[in-house]
């Protein structure tokens, strides 16, 4: 147990130090790289807390895709941009209050749990086919929250589109290693995404993790200049992005017609319904992430590529 404690303490100390570093370093490129490393270390922390689903999601979305979005945005701003000017005192004050509030609340909750000696609460999994407790919570017990989360992603996309869409289009010459890499990896990633989706009901996986892998494949494809014909026209993009939320909502209302509450699946149909929702939500989330990546990148050479 002692080596585990030492490692955990080391991990926690590195996380705090890295967070301090990436907030204060003036070179934004370095901050971006530090952010990706931070995401990976947080994934390691989740593993130490025995939460593999969260570790998967953190590594894929928090470190991978968010890091790629950040670096892509920086690329649109020029080489190694520096932060200009210190933050205003008002912003610093507000951030301090927020940090104290969040940190204090977390300390209170954690301290309460530790002091009251609460053991493990009743296990959450095991209703019907959903034996994975994370998926059971996300898509059954708290399905409403997940529905709103998918809607929030679509809103984020709409918000960024409103700010002005970049014409996109490929950059200069695509280096052959990148093309080879994408040709090698993209089919494999789609396969892994499908596997994660399928085994998410009983094992580690689920819609968000699968969507993250799919989005990573899509981003790689866009970086290599591969056109995804499905996403060429704006209507198709908007349609695919909102498909997951729409179907989720439709199923939620539909089960009401069958005589239940909103999003209360009838026991016989729970498996297929949840799988349908997860599959379409994964596709939608992946499409939203890829479109976010495209919308925040450097301005393309010309708008000829756009259909």
């Amino acid at each position, binding site marked *: 147990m002692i080596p585990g404690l030492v490692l955990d303490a080391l991990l926690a100390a590195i996380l705090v130090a890295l967070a301090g570093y990436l907030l204060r370093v003036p070179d934004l490129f370095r901050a971006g790289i530090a952010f990706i490393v931070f995401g990976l270390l947080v994934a390691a922390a989740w593993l130490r807390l025995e939460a593999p689903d969260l570790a998967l999601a953190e590594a894929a979305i928090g470190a991978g895709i968010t890091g790629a979005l950040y670096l892509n945005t920086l690329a649109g701003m020029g080489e190694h941009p520096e932060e200009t000017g210190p933050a205003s005192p008002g912003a610093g004050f507000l951030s301090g209050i927020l940090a104290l509030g969040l940190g204090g609340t977390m300390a209170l909750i954690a301290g309460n749990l530790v002091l009251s000696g609460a053991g493990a609460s009743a296990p959450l999994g095991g209703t019907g086919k959903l034996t994975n407790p994370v998926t059971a919570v996300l898509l059954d017990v708290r399905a409403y929250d997940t529905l709103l989360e998918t809607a929030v992603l679509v809103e984020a996309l709409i918000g960024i589109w409103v700010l002005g869409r970049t014409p996109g289009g490929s950059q200069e010459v695509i*280096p052959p*290693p*990148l093309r*080879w*890499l994408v040709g*090698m*990896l993209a089919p*494999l990633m789609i396969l892994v995404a499908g596997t994660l989706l399928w085994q998410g009901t009983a094992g580690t996986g689920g819609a968000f993790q699968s969507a993250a892998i799919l989005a990573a494949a899509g981003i790689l494809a866009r970086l290599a200049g591969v056109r995804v014909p499905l996403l060429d026209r704006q209507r198709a993009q908007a349609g695919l992005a909102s498909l997951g939320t729409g179907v989720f909502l439709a199923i939620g209302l539909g089960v009401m017609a069958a005589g239940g509450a909103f999003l209360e699946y009838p026991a016989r149909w729970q498996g297929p319904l949840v799988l349908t929702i997860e599959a379409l939500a994964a596709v939608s989330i992946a499409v939203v992430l890829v479109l976010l990546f495209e919308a925040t990148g450097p301005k393309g050479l010309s708008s000829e590529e756009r259909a």
Partner: protein
Amino acid sequence: MSLLLEALSVALLLGSAFFFIAGTVALIRFPDTLCRLHALTKADNVGLGLLVLGLMPRTGDAAAAGLLLVIWILVLITSGPLSALLAGAALRSGEGNHRP
């Protein structure tokens, strides 16, 4: 798990730790990006291979051991083109001209 297998696993894991430390030292001490890339691709991939080989006897399940091997092969496959891309970017930005 037999004593021989345990000893072999520990030896492989220690070897892996050595290679990772060597790669990190190279990352810190070498003068430019190209040298660091060269050292890292060799040392880290060997380190990962030894790590995977050392962990395989500990899984106790052929499918999990096979999955570990697949992970190593995937990292090997992708690290080649990735290093080429990084080296290309480094050359374009003017590094890699340290001639003794």
